[in-house]
């Protein structure tokens, strides 16, 4: 996973796929997601319960913890924002 985190493009692709698979999105394929599209509401249309699922997936894949909605609001702004958040928080030396 360390190699994926280092490579922005690979990380974007991984996150797109993770979102589609975790939330079992049927009408959206990973390639349809723009990295700057808002994940919630008017963008991809995710809701706060989807956020709970994503938090678990992110912790599982990256060992990165998103404590609450205050942190999540920024992290879940878009794929790009989420990738930046993971890069910053990814445990060193893993």
């Amino acid at each position, binding site marked *: 996973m360390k190699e994926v985190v280092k490579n922005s493009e690979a990380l974007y692709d991984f996150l797109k796929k993770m979102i589609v698979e975790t939330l079992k999105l049927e009408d959206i394929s990973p390639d349809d997601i723009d990295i700057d599209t808002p994940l919630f509401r008017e963008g991809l249309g995710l809701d*706060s319960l989807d956020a*709970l699922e994503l*938090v*678990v997936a992110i912790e599982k894949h990256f060992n990165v913890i998103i404590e*609450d909605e205050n*942190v999540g609001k920024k992290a879940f702004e878009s794929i790009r924002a989420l990738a930046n958040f993971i890069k910053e928080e990814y445990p060193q030396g893993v």
Partner: protein
Amino acid sequence: MRWVETEETVRFNEVDEWGMAWYGHYMAWFEVGRMALLRRFDLLPRHMVDLGYIAPVVSLTCDYKQSVGCGESIVIRTTAVKPEIAALICKFKIMLKDSKVLLARGETMQVLMTVDRKLVYRLSGEIEKRISSLLQFCQT
């Protein structure tokens, strides 16, 4: 899985025009069962508020198996499980007291929010301790 049992009698104001317990009233019985379970672990709504949280229900299912009439005694069985996400699922069975015939089976999911309405993504501190005790009780 361990269930907490609560007894109720179907009241006149709880039945519909056809003499059967009104379908919506089962939710009130679920609530009776939930309170009986959560009370044991100091997780009643007021306890949660004291800790700085509320726990709104975000989903509910109910399957009705058999009708019940006014004056009949029922038992509400309640237990809890935790999904992988930061939420609590309560499961309910409503049965006739004497024959144990199943009347309805249901489930609710609650999430945790801070009192200022921010969703909690991970359980921690005292609330986590109490919920862990509750889940341990239900699992044994």
